[in-house]
């Protein structure tokens, strides 16, 4: 079974600085998708960024980018120019051909002004 590990329960970053959230996963599949979701205290899960495993190029979305290392099964999220609105729980998730998402335990991100 696939597993997703987020080893940082909590991270802090100063406003306007850069922070990297770590994620590793375990799978025997070669074709899959990886996601980062953000969950603010309001609880609505919002997609931040997605990466297809067959693509070598790292995905980017404005201030958000990933470092996808397929051989190492690593998928970290970099947030540049951090803003107060970035404060939330961040979940790394894996989706296989079976369609269901497997989530990590999450990382709480605190942004200091």
């Amino acid at each position: 079974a696939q597993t997703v590990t987020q080893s940082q329960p909590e991270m802090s970053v100063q406003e306007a600085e850069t922070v990297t959230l770590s994620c590793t996963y375990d799978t025997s599949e070669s074709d899959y998708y990886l996601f980062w979701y953000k969950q603010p205290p309001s609880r609505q899960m919002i997609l931040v960024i997605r990466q297809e495993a067959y693509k070598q190029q790292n995905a980017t979305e404005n201030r958000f980018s990933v470092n996808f290392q397929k051989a190492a099964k690593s998928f970290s999220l970099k947030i540049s120019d951090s803003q107060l609105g970035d404060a939330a729980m961040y979940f790394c998730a894996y989706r296989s051909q079976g369609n269901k998402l497997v989530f990590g335990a999450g990382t709480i991100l605190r942004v200091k002004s």
Partner: protein
Amino acid sequence: GAGVSQSPRYKVAKRGQDVALRCDPISGHVSLFWYQQALGQGPEFLTYFQNEAQLDKSGLPSDRFFAERPEGSVSTLKIQRTQQEDSAVYLCASSLQGDTDTQYFGPGTRLTVL
């Protein structure tokens, strides 16, 4: 609709009561998923529909949990004889198709069993 909606947002039940949680997916979305999120943890998969067909129910924790989507749109998650360990947030997500599409989540229903 503009997004996935769920109702009620909050539900308090006495142990042993039956509850029904509703999910309205984004209009036109074929796939619908239910997840359970315990406090401070990541969501865990419960079940998956493609149109009205329930293709995967491997995550349902017991036979007290039942989900349906009879017309391929709105879905209901029913929990019979609720137990304290059922207390969690129940999240619904929908996607346009299946394999390659992003899942969009609703706000969730927080169930508290006393």
